[in-house]
């Protein structure tokens, strides 16, 4: 079968990324500016928060993406870009680049929802059938449950009302004075701790609700470390490593319990056979394991993104774009970035 190569671009948050993917599955190249040692190779800067960093990273990332895939722009079938949701000045960089390239190379332009593309990550380099399913996207900026009938038919079933799960990990890491990024720090220390040492609250909201709330558990950890009402001493500096490990393990268990419970409740609600897990927090081994155990019990198939595609990347953007190209869902050259989800 003939190849259908799509170039994907992504700059919705901190990562500047580009990728070339064949027919939604086979990744020819996937380059992310914050992981590659591009700044050494090209003398650029380490990505920071400003759009300027995306701008500085974009061309080296693009060059690297084409070099690794060893293809010429003529061979592309389309150019795709994550245009929502995110920070407008950041999104603008990849959107402007994609529009320019699509126009210059005379290729169709495809607009992709960044959060939806996180689910496409499970299909990269795999051949399983994933639909219909229920999907959990859990990251620093999002915690959302979707009912997925196909890659393009996603219905939002629940989302966080305050903090995203990944944000809770980062803030708890800050409370415990662990290194950034907080997710991996907590996961590592939690391996040495007892998940039942402290009974942190699990917030389930109203009966039947599929929404999430993680601001309460963050405060519970804070009070545990600093005394009720913040009136005690900050014990973190004098805590033993074991006590910190127990806090990490207990916190991680509480967040995981809620994520797992709501995800399987959602799956049962729509009689899905399959559960998809994506987003940066999907790299957390404890969450992967607990969800796997629960899914096996309920005879649900669990599909998890390969770890390298859990965090922001453009391969998932190019992957989802293939389905949109087939459905002829193309964007115009007047495409604008949207801070919220389209």
């Amino acid at each position, binding site marked *: 079968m003939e190849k259908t190569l799509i170039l994907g671009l992504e700059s919705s948050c901190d990562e500047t990324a580009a990728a070339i993917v064949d027919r939604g599955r086979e990744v020819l190249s996937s380059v992310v500016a914050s992981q590659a040692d591009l700044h050494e190779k090209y003398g650029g800067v380490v990505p920071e*928060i400003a759009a300027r960093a995306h701008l500085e990273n974009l061309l080296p990332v693009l060059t690297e993406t084409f070099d690794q895939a060893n293809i010429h722009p003529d061979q592309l079938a389309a150019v795709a870009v994550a245009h929502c949701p995110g920070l407008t000045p950041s999104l603008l960089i990849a959107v402007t680049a994609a529009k320019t390239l699509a126009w210059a190379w005379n290729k169709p332009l495809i607009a992709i929802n960044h959060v939806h593309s996180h689910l496409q990550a499970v299909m990269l380099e795999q051949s399983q059938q994933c639909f219909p399913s229920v999907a959990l996207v859990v990251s620093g900026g999002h915690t959302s449950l979707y009912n997925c009938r196909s890659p393009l038919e996603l219905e939002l079933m629940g989302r966080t009302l305050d*903090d995203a799960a990944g944000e809770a990990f980062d803030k708890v890491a800050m409370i415990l004075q662990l290194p950034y990024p907080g997710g991996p720090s907590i996961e590592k220390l939690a391996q040495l701790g007892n998940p039942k040492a402290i009974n942190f609250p699990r917030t389930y909201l109203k009966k039947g609700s599929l929404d999430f709330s993680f*601001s309460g558990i963050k405060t519970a950890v804070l009070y545990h470390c600093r005394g009720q009402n913040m009136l005690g001493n900050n014990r973190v500096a004098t805590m033993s490593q074991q006590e910190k490990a127990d806090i990490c393990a207990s916190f991680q268990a509480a967040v995981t319990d809620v994520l797992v419970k709501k995800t399987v409740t959602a799956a049962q609600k729509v009689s899905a056979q399959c559960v998809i897990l994506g987003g940066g927090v999907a790299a957390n081994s404890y969450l992967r394991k607990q969800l796997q155990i629960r899914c096996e019990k309920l005879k649900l198939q669990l599909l998890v993104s390969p770890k390298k595609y859990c965090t922001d990347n453009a391969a998932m953007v190019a992957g989802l774009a293939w389905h949109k190209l087939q459905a002829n869902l193309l964007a115009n050259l007047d495409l604008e970035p949207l*801070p919220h989800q389209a």
Partner: protein
Amino acid sequence: MEIISRKVEQTIEIGQAIGEAVGGGEVIALIGELGTGKTHLIKGMAKGIATGQDDEVTSPTFTLINEYEGRVKLIHIDAYRLENARQLEALGFDEFCEADNVVVIEWADRVWELAAEFEPIEIHLEHAGPTERKIRLDNLPQAMAEKLMCFN
């Protein structure tokens, strides 16, 4: 002015009263530790500004800025991940501070140098009990102060 909020729901009500009193052009600086209710206060403001999106107000710690359309536009900035005022400037802070927008900054103390230039309404939040929060408001416009009297 100093207000004690007894619980999260009341923090949201206080935010709603603030939201009802804004007319555009305000810059509001929120200063307070983790878990003092900054995001909940902004949820209330979104309700008061009639964005119809108050359910969707979530912490922009990772995205840095959320925007909500209402009677005026609510620009919700989270400076938690910013290291200094210059980074806020790089995000185009000046451009957000105009007459049609209400700009609210969480963790404003981290970018105070720049925020202070706009003479913001200052809201300091502190833990005062398991669910109680002490909320101190400075540099309040008259109309907003009157609106908040009932909580005092």
